[in-house]
């Protein structure tokens, strides 16, 4: 078994900060189906609806019966590593900077061959393995061969650690520590081995026992941050922007009304100011600094996490304006992803279902505890995903959304009556 990653040495400040390189990102459109599944942590391959043949590499027409009806289906990934090599002279700079690479040819039990990275804990070929999908630094799906049982930590393989955004040894900004989710996130990140956490505080006059308890944690620093105030964001970015490896935006303003039950737009404006413009202000001030440090050694800037809501996918009319603000933030996060992606900084969106807090009071269970949301955030960083939907409600809505977005719209509007 490989050694777990150790606390990296401090960077020599005299050394040049390297420019980021990325693995090849070009994919055919049909191959992006692999990425779409990997973004959610799933390994899916195309399966022929007519003859059932599993397909790989991705294609337009069934290799067995020429049917054009190919659908992406979850795979168990079981197979045999039949042959392998260690690449010591690849052509792309990204690979050359991280030599050597263990790559294998795996025959899946489903009857197709895949080329995949081989996790260090896999024995020599031939042996049984399981294939997982992951996102590489370019944000595209790659396949990884892991031992057939258990779920090995990608971070334990120094090459595959690149596929994760493991919070271990990272310096992290959690933008709002006053919310229950923010506090749970700080504790979960600390437990996951974060090196240092800055915790944003917008309203110092508002006392909160959970927040006060954070002050006693080691390696934690409370910093003033009001995302509705451009100057506040700018000042903090000037102070710590060049040190943040992971930004976790937990700022969230949630007021629960259908759009006709309260007159005026002030509440909706406040939600937008925090949830949408807050993200925009953070992006404008922090994103350039993260990009500049995307290749800064073992503790480079690596990820940006947005706490969105499953309501961002389809409007939940009883939370009408909140849903709209989260949809706006979701849209903006896609632009942020396009901006940070070429540097290799991953944008992770977390879409929780209703959380067990004041503003989801009237939602029926199952509801997510703030700790469960925090666990989902840490898990998303440790794994290799970019969209996570924690909780049973989120999973249910996602499934309905993917199957038929219009049907979900109707179902949600009925729930509002």
């Amino acid at each position: 078994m490989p050694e777990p990653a150790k606390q990296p040495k401090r960077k020599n400040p005299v050394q040049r900060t390297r420019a980021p390189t990325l693995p090849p990102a070009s994919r055919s459109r049909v191959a992006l189906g692999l990425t779409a599944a990997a973004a959610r942590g799933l390994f899916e391959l195309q399966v022929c609806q007519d003859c059932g043949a599993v397909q790989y590499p991705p294609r337009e027409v069934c290799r067995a019966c020429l049917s054009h009806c190919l659908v992406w289906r979850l795979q168990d990934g079981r197979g045999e590593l039949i042959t392998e090599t260690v690449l010591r002279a690849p052509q792309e700079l990204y690979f050359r900077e991280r030599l050597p690479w263990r790559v294998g040819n795996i025959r899946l039990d489903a009857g197709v061959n895949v080329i995949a990275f081989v996790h260090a804990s896999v024995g020599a070929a031939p042996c049984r393995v399981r294939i997982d999908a992951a996102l590489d630094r370019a944000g595209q799906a790659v396949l990884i061969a892991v031992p057939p049982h258990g779920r090995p930590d990608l971070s334990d393989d120094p090459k595959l650690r690149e596929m994760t955004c493991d919070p271990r040894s990272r310096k992290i900004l959690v933008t709002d520590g006053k919310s229950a989710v923010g506090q749970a996130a700080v504790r979960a990140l600390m437990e996951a081995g974060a090196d240092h956490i800055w915790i944003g505080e917008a309203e110092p006059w508002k006392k909160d026992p959970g927040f006060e308890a954070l002050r006693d944690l080691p390696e934690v620093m409370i910093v003033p941050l009001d995302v509705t105030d451009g100057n506040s964001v700018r000042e903090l970015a000037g102070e710590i922007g060049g040190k943040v490896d992971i930004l976790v935006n937990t700022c969230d303003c949630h007021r629960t009304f259908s759009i006709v039950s309260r007159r005026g737009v002030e509440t909706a404006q406040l939600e937008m100011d925090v949830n949408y413009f807050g993200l925009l202000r953070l992006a404008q001030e922090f994103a350039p600094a993260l990009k500049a440090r995307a290749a800064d050694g073992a503790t480079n800037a690596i990820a940006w996490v947005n706490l969105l809501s499953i309501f961002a996918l389809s409007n939940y009319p009883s939370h009408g304006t909140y849903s709209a603000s989260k949809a706006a933030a979701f849209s903006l996060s896609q632009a942020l992803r396009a901006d940070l992606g070429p540097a290799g900084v991953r944008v992770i969106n977390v879409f929780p279902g209703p959380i067990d807090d004041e503003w989801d009071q009237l939602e029926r269970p199952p509801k997510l505890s703030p700790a469960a949301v925090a666990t989902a955030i840490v898990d998303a960083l440790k794994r290799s995903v970019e969209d996570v939907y924690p909780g049973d409600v989120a999973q249910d809505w996602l499934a309905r959304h993917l199957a038929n977005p219009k049907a979900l719209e109707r179902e949600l509007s009925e729930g509002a009556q």
Partner: protein
Amino acid sequence: MPARLAYDDVVLAAPVTVPYTRYSIRSAHWFLGRAMAGLIAAAKIPKARVDGLAVASFTLAPDTAVGLTQHLGLTLRWLDHIPMGGASGIVSIRRAARAVQTGDAEIVACIAGDTNHTDSFRRNTASFSQFSQDAVYPYGSGGPNASFAFLTDYYMRKYGARREDFGKLCVAQRNNALKNPLALLKKPLTLDQYLNARLVADPLRLFDCVMPCAGAEGFLVMRRATAENLGLRYARLLGAIERHNAFPDDPVQYRGGWTLDRDELYEQAGIAPDDIDFLETYDDYPVINALQFEGLGFCREGDGASFIRANTFEAAGTFPFNTSGGQLSVGQAGAAGGHLGIVEAIRQLTGETLGARVPNARHGLVSGFGMINYDRGICCGAAVLAAA
């Protein structure tokens, strides 16, 4: 299935090599143009006599054979573009032979060539095929090194082949190349140097890997009567096969498409493997030679290593093989790699050798292999040539 029509009196003539260079600032058109000029000069015919053209090139884009036709100022009544990599040469022969047999063309120029800029090999492999782009290149394994590492690792474990076996072939080819003035790799190679060279993609080391370069090869296909009228020395085409995507269900490529068609090849040629005086394989990596020894019937499947141990491979050896040095010692000028062996075979059979000469060569077998589209080479071909 009906029997294959014989090739009757189809012949190959005017072997031409445009000298290789490791890198070039020229485009593919330059190398293909030089090959064409070389063919005209060798055959002592006016350009207008060439009425058919078969072209293979990886770096001709955005042009195809069509663009090249105008670029070279040719007026043709038969034109083909053969995008089959190392099988293009054999496939060109097959297409051209039928064209001259039927009278669709009288003299077909078969040319292949590529340039090699300092970064062009990487860019070509990045966009080599859709499967490669989607499922190979993202793993750092674009280009053939990793693909052949898989094949070699598997073959060695399945059949007990050793690195010394592959090394013996590489050393023999280098010895052949030392006599070829056009070979790029001209330093003597010892087995120790081969075995201890730096690792590239385990188990492949430096001298297992072909060196990409710029250059071109060409020859003419016509009927025997045409060649005799022109006073050209020629080699006769006795038989030729091609096969694409053979054995798609093999988990790894441990046999090629030759296996499916070799009986018909020898039947068409009217000879047996024992009658072959020399073999020119497609040899970008040594393991693929073993697959050709087996697939073309020189030994049984899996016996490649013992066949290597039992033979010597220099031009004067017990099994003369890749007599010009092959791609591993001459260089791989892109798609011309599949024409290299054909051009060398014509030289051997017409007595026009540049270097090592196979004594009393009557029959030569040339083999082509091309296009690692995903995890294996798709195109296989072979042709039997005979001295006039």
